[in-house]
């Protein structure tokens, strides 16, 4: 062998040695340095978690009657992965299945699209879960049809049928309570992101709103997890863990199905009556609260929807209808989300303000037909002059002008348009004492806080809107350039940051920029009734385990005390009784055998309806009863319902009739919802079979 060959052989040998060392190095990297990463990757390839959702706990009323329970249904599910693999992306199969189930193809198509796959402006009906879980297109299939699908898997590739637990709202005693109960649905990507501080498994059904959402962690239970090791064909080779699901706990509420049902029909009656007299009556709310602890005994929102519609499979048009303006946005819960000017019901706040400002509550006050405030005349509601009246009478007949005078005087005393550095602000402070600008803190999601149009609010408002009003001619739409609006814009630009005389007098009668929810007003009147305690309203009373143990009691919580002396409250009690005996609500309560106290309210609303008509007044009636030893605060509001007394006043009377077992002018204590006059304080035994108590 010559020298060159020898050298070449050595070079080749070294080269090959290098290659082998390179392999060894790479092997070291993969198996030692990066091994944890690859071990994780391998685990995610091999293991599948099969989530076995727990049985959801029941929601029951205060005597144990189920408001929400579980039922077994037959779901027809779609496997999107299998569908997408088909040459036509499953169009043909979906069409045939829709046909078989008697569903609209477009609904089924949308129901099987992930929300991200549909255009932003039109996502109604989309699937909120993931591509990898079976997507139910109905949960209540006819077993015959389901069998057809299962037997002919070849004709229906990617379609399956499986028994599922369906959340069911049985509606005993005709109860609806859709807004309070809420509904359940599949976990969405957003839910999984942990933004709301809760953690879920992908195939769980979770509470989406209402009590179902609020107490989801108790109701949902703990899902069972079965982790299996699969092979490439996804067949299971072994099981690595299997935990059994733990059923959810039950939720006992303070609601009573019979009362709830009665309140719902009283509300829809009120709406019907308002419509019969020509008002649009687009929405309403009615609430019954225990004034001694804040427990909600009934709460209704109009319009409403079928709480079972989600589980039945919401069609696209159903989903749209829930949010349509034309239908009054049934999805909105009026008691906690409807914001309305409280009108004369707010005069109770003004009484406290006047008393604190040193006005003699037992004196007489002038009630002319109008009061000149600056360059504007502010009129009585029906422009009737009443002469000098006692304050009590003034409240009973709802005189506005006497409040204008007091508010205007106080405004001047605080410095008018050039306020003192430390103004008394008796009216604003009284409202703050009633916690008008705070949430009631009810145990339901999405509550809105009221808006108290005091000095701070006005400054913030001005900072945000100054630009608009000071450039109104350029910024406003053509149809907004009316002389009145132009003048308003000019004024707003000029001194929109200040409380003007008009703002001050409007505030005293609950008009203007101050708006509150019906629930807030209920909380306020409950506080008046009970001697000044502001309770946190609550729907839930307790969480009870499957074996009947009380796991958590939701205790009453006092949020504050009204800024009123006993004398002031006593005067207020007399006045509110006078409203019913010799005031605006006398007609509504004529012949009613139990003493009730309350206040009507008829709030003017500015603006127009979609059809161009001017908005009708908000009808309010806020009350408590019995007058002596009050137990219940009852409030009804009908938006665009017209007069407070004739619409809401009568509605509230109907609620009291149900509560106390009144027929005509007779009381039958046996027919009362709570025969001893007290809502139950004990926690009932829980069984899905509990029946509604039948009153004779």
């Amino acid at each position, binding site marked *: 062998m010559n020298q*060159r060959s020898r050298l070449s052989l050595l070079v*080749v040998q070294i080269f090959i040695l290098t290659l082998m060392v390179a392999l060894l190095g790479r092997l070291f990297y993969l*198996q030692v340095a990066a091994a944890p990463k690859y071990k994780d990757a391998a685990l995610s390839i091999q293991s599948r978690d099969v989530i076995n959702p727990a049985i959801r706990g029941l929601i029951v009323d205060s005597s144990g009657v189920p408001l929400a329970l579980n039922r077994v249904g037959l779901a027809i599910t779609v496997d999107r992965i299998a569908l997408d693999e088909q040459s036509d992306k499953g169009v043909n199969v979906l069409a045939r299945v829709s046909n078989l189930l008697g569903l609209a193809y477009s609904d089924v198509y949308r129901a099987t699209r992930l929300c991200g796959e549909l255009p932003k402006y039109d996502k109604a009906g989309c699937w909120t879960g993931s591509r990898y879980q079976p997507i139910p297109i109905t949960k209540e299939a006819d077993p015959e049809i389901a069998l057809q699908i299962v037997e002919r898997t070849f004709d229906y590739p990617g379609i399956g049928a499986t028994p599922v637990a369906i959340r069911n709202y049985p509606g005993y005693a005709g109860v609806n309570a859709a807004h309070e109960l809420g509904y359940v649905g599949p976990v969405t990507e957003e839910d999984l992101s942990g933004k709301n501080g809760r953690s879920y498994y992908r195939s769980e059904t979770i509470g989406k709103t209402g009590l179902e959402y609020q107490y989801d962690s108790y109701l949902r239970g703990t899902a069972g997890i079965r982790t299996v090791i699969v092979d490439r064909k996804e067949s299971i080779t072994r099981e690595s863990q299997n935990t059994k699901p733990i059923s959810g706990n039950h939720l006992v509420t303070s609601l009573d199905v019979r009362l709830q049902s009665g309140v719902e029909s009283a509300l829809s009656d009120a709406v019907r009556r308002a419509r019969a007299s020509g008002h649009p009556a687009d929405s309403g709310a009615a609430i019954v609260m225990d004034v001694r602890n804040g427990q909600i005994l009934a709460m209704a929102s109009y319009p409403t929807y079928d709480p079972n519609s989600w589980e039945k499979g919401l069609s696209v048009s159903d989903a749209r209808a829930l949010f349509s303006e034309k239908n009054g946005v049934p999805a909105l819960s009026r008691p906690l989300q409807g914001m309305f000017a409280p009108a004369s019901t707010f005069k109770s706040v003004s009484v406290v303000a006047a008393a604190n400002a040193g006005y003699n509550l037992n004196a007489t006050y002038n009630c002319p037909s109008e009061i000149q405030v600056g360059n504007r005349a502010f009129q009585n509601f029906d422009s009737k002059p009443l002469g000098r009246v006692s304050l009590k009478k003034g409240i009973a007949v709802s005189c506005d002008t006497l409040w204008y005078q007091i508010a205007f005087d106080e405004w001047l005393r605080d410095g008018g348009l050039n306020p003192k550095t430390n103004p008394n602000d008796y009216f604003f402070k009284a409202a703050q004492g009633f916690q008008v600008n705070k949430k009631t803190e009810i145990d339901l999601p999405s509550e809105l806080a009221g808006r108290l149009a005091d000095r701070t609010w006005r400054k913030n408002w001005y900072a945000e809107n100054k630009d608009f009003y000071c450039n109104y001619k350029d910024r406003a739409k053509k149809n907004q350039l009316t002389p009145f609006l132009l003048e308003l814009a000019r004024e707003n630009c000029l001194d929109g940051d200040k409380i003007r005389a008009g703002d001050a007098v409007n505030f005293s009668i609950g008009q203007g920029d101050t708006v509150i929810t019906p629930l807030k007003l209920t909380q306020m009147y409950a506080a008046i009734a009970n001697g000044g305690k502001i309770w946190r309203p609550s729907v839930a009373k307790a969480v009870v385990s499957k074996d009947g143990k009380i796991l958590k009691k939701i205790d009453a919580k006092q949020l504050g005390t009204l800024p009123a002396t006993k004398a002031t409250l006593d005067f207020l009690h007399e006045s509110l009784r006078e409203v019913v005996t010799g005031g605006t609500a006398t007609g509504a309560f004529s012949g009613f055998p139990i003493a009730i106290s309350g206040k009507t309210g008829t709030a003017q609303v500015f603006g127009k309806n979609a059809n161009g008509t001017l908005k009708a007044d908000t009808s309010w009636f806020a009350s408590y009863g019995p007058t002596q030893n009050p137990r219940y605060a009852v409030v009804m509001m009908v938006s665009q319902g017209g007069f407070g007394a004739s619409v809401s006043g009568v509605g509230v009377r109907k609620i009291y009739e149900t509560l106390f077992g009144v027929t005509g002018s007779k009381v039958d204590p046996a027919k009362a919802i709570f025969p001893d006059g007290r809502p139950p304080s004990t926690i009932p035994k829980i069984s899905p079979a509990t029946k509604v108590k039948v009153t004779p």
Partner: protein
Amino acid sequence: MSSLSSRSIYRRRSRGSVFAGFDPILTGSVAALLVIGTLLVYAATRDWYAANNLDPEYYLKRHVLNILIGLLLAWGTTIIDYRLLRAYTPIFWGLGVLGLIIVLIPGLGAEVNGAKAWIALPGGFQIQPAELAKISIIIGMSMILSERTHDSNEATSRDVLQALVVAGIPVIFILLQPDMGTVFIISASVVTIIAISGASSRWVVALLLIAVVGAFGATKAGVINSYQVNRLQSFVNPNADVQGSGYQLRQARITVGSGGFLGTGLFNGPQTNGRFVPEQQTDFIFTVAGEELGFVGSAGILLLYLIILMRAFSIARRANDPYGRLVATGITAWFAFQIFENIGMTLGLMPMTGVPLPFLSYGGSSMFATLIGFGLLQNVHARHR
């Protein structure tokens, strides 16, 4: 006269001790790999076959049969004097080329994974002529480059050109299948043989350049078909094609990496038992070692290969004549590049090609060819003294 007498001396020695000439280190290492390979093939197929209601020992049995036949061939190759073999070289070469032509004839050649690389035989057996063609090329080139028709001790350009024709004809047919992995391995071996033959170093440089330009040009001109381009691209970006060749590469890497330092233990790899790596008993056999035997076992296998290769180099170095040396070097290069290509592919260092791992992979043709190669190494070793 002298040639006759020397031949008889060799015959005598070989007749006297059939196994005496065996290199114990080389033989021991190969034997160890054959045993490990048998276990790995069984581990790769047992659970999956059992789960699909097939004979779990199907591959084990066939693999052992392949090894036995291969050993017989190796033994046969060892006892015949390689210089006698040299006389029959043209016949072997011709048979190799014939096999490669048959593969391309529709109806006779079977297409697997986009390549016409197989001749189907009765009884479910298949032959891959390209595997055996490697041997034909190595011994053919060695013959031409070691024949001295002139005084010089070095191969002339004329020799080199002849050798390239000998290698080129089968390579063209393999390109037509196409089987780029084998072409790569043959090319690397050809360059190595020419370098060792003592030919001008300009030849070596020129051939390396041609190889690089050729590889680049082939990709551009579309000689490499789309499935190969896919494989090459998925090598560059393995996440691009989740279920295709990128998927295989990714799965292979995850399987090896998840084995960690000690591995999951033989027969206990969940990736292997779940069959997440396709063709695991053949081209991806090293992933089984990676997962179940861990770094310790896989590095052990690499060490065995290293011992075999280094032993083969020393055999080449000590060979008595240029022919033996070239044959030994050619086989060493073939083994080395095939090992590197296969394990490199498994570990994500090389593009994906369908090349089996010598001594470990399931597959008759490959097993026969590598064992014949081993036999040739032994042959050269036995006659160097």
